[in-house]
């Protein structure tokens, strides 16, 4: 078991009250898994990935536990997390394209990171060059400024830096969203290669694009309005989803081969609830076309297949 999340709750403290951005999330991922995390904007996916690595105000830890490789991860303690960050758990942030210091050369920047962390740079020098080769970058890049690189090159560079200490868990937050299709493919495949080469043990890949997840993820977790909706093997989530929201979400994905004139797709009417005062029970209730009277109560998480869990009253009824 590489990562286990138990009832994690993280809220945002605002003047008008608490925004329940991450409400009672629990799941597990195995060693070597790539977990895809998908959902609409504002569903809490970035809150989740940030809370694992840097939980700072206005984020507020409310409860829950995180275990990494069997050891408790002190997410709520900023100081204690310092020694875990980068070494055990690392992130490629959403803004990776401007993550590097623009005023120093990339090689110097890596030195700086290592000096700050009190790690020895000498030991990794050769490894760094080897990995640059793997992602198709030249050694000379270390003597360049970030501005001299293209978007895809920067993304690959940040990927190499983030995984240099062989962290147990890597979080990739929307890393392909700003890239073109061909670069997107290259970067995603590299991430899989990093996992295969054991540079990282497991990966959480956060995105709003379900079709990319189908390409690289082993498991997919769907979130809705800060709540857990469904988790399961990628194949199952795409081709046999159980939660009503997942079904609608997958159906709304346009694909090459689907035309408006032949098979018009439908979106999901309405928009997600405000998380400052979310509805009781299932949070999808206002937009759900198949809602029942039970839906005003909190749906339990039930098992519907191997490694496939869902929180939807419809499934509870079906299996009862």
């Amino acid at each position, binding site marked *: 078991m590489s990562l286990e999340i138990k009832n994690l709750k993280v809220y945002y403290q605002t003047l008008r009250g608490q925004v329940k951005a991450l409400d009672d999330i629990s799941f597990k991922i195995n060693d070597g898994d790539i977990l895809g995390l998908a959902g609409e904007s504002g569903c809490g996916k970035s809150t989740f990935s940030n809370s694992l690595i840097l939980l700072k105000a206005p984020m507020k830890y409310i409860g829950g536990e995180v275990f990494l490789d069997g050891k408790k991860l002190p997410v709520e303690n900023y100081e204690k997390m310092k020694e875990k960050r980068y070494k055990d758990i690392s992130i490629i942030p959403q803004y990776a394209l401007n993550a590097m210091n623009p005023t120093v050369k990339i090689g110097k920047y890596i030195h700086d990171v290592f000096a700050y962390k009190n790690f020895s740079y000498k030991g990794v020098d050769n490894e760094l060059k080897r990995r640059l080769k793997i992602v198709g970058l030249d050694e000379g890049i270390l003597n360049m400024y970030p501005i001299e690189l293209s978007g895809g090159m920067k993304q690959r560079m940040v990927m190499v830096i983030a995984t240099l200490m062989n962290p147990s868990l890597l979080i990739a937050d929307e890393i392909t969203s700003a890239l073109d*299709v061909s670069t997107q493919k290259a970067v995603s495949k590299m991430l899989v290669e990093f996992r295969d080469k054991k540079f990282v043990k497991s990966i959480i890949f956060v995105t*709003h*694009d379900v*079709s990319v997840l189908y390409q690289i993820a082993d498991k997919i977790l769907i979130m809705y309005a800060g709540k857990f909706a469904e988790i399961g093997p990628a194949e199952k989530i795409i081709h046999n989803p159980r939660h009503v929201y997942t079904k609608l979400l997958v159906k709304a*994905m346009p*694909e*090459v081969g689907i*035309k*408006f004139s032949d098979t018009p797709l439908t*979106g999901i009417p309405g928009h997600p609830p405000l998380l400052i005062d979310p509805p009781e029970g299932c949070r999808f209730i206002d937009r759900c076309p198949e809602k029942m009277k039970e839906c005003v109560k909190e749906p339990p998480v039930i098992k519907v297949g191997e490694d496939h869990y869902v929180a939807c009253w419809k499934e509870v009824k079906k299996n009862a």
Partner: protein
Amino acid sequence: MLEATNLTKEFKVGSFGRGVFKAVNKASFKIDNKDIVSLIGESGSGKTTIGRMILKLTQISGGQIKYNGKDVSDIKNKNLKEYYRKVQGVFQDPFSTFNPIFKADRIFKMVKNEFYPALSNKEWEKKLDDSLKSVGLNPKEVLNKYPHQLSGGQLQRFLIARALLIDVELLIADEIISMLDASTRIDVLNLLAMLKEKGLSVLFITHDLSLGYYISNKAIILYRGVIVEMGPTDKVFFNPVHSYTQSLLDSVPRLDMKWDEIPKRKKTYTDIVSYIPGMSKRELKMTEIEENHFVAIE
């Protein structure tokens, strides 16, 4: 209705503008009545520049754009308003297009003052209601609200409604759904396709191939400012000839097949070299390889 011939845009680069960067290089294409044309390209391929040139937001460096037979760059002063009555643009970011301190009504009021000063208030309100309803918005819900009170999908539809108010014929839609969520973007797309039935033409600028395929009947593939392939959507997507189009299509994440399972494409036309515009001195010619399907070949 719109015809571009050898459309070129050059930007001066380098110190004192000594270098020349061709953002768009001799692009020729046509948009007919009731066409939805998707203009597909990666970032920096010049797709937005083409849209801006049609909207007269950027000057043309070479070639020309003809709208209903008239050269667009000759349209000036009074005629410009007439032109904008027919051709309108909607852009990527709906959140920053609106003035945040104006209520929605005021935005529409500006349209009235500008284009329909003679119309009575009652007639105007009816027109406004119709146009909002045609984009699927409830006028009572959205008028009298500030932009921050509306969602991205609502704002984007607002912009389309505003364009429709003035009997627009051609809509330049520049990445209009890239900022929207998967669950709402499809509604905006469907709206465009429905408006097409009513006689609207759309230039749909996007980097997302599946969205382009979904609504357009013609596709133009742009690479470094050069049109490498264009034609009816089905022909371009299912019988791509240029190696760039092929590699682009093979990179699209699909839900029915993984990247590794995609079969290698057979080279159908062996004389097509993988040509990198700007790197090579060779001239390309648009060649019709089947009906209406053009490919840039040496």
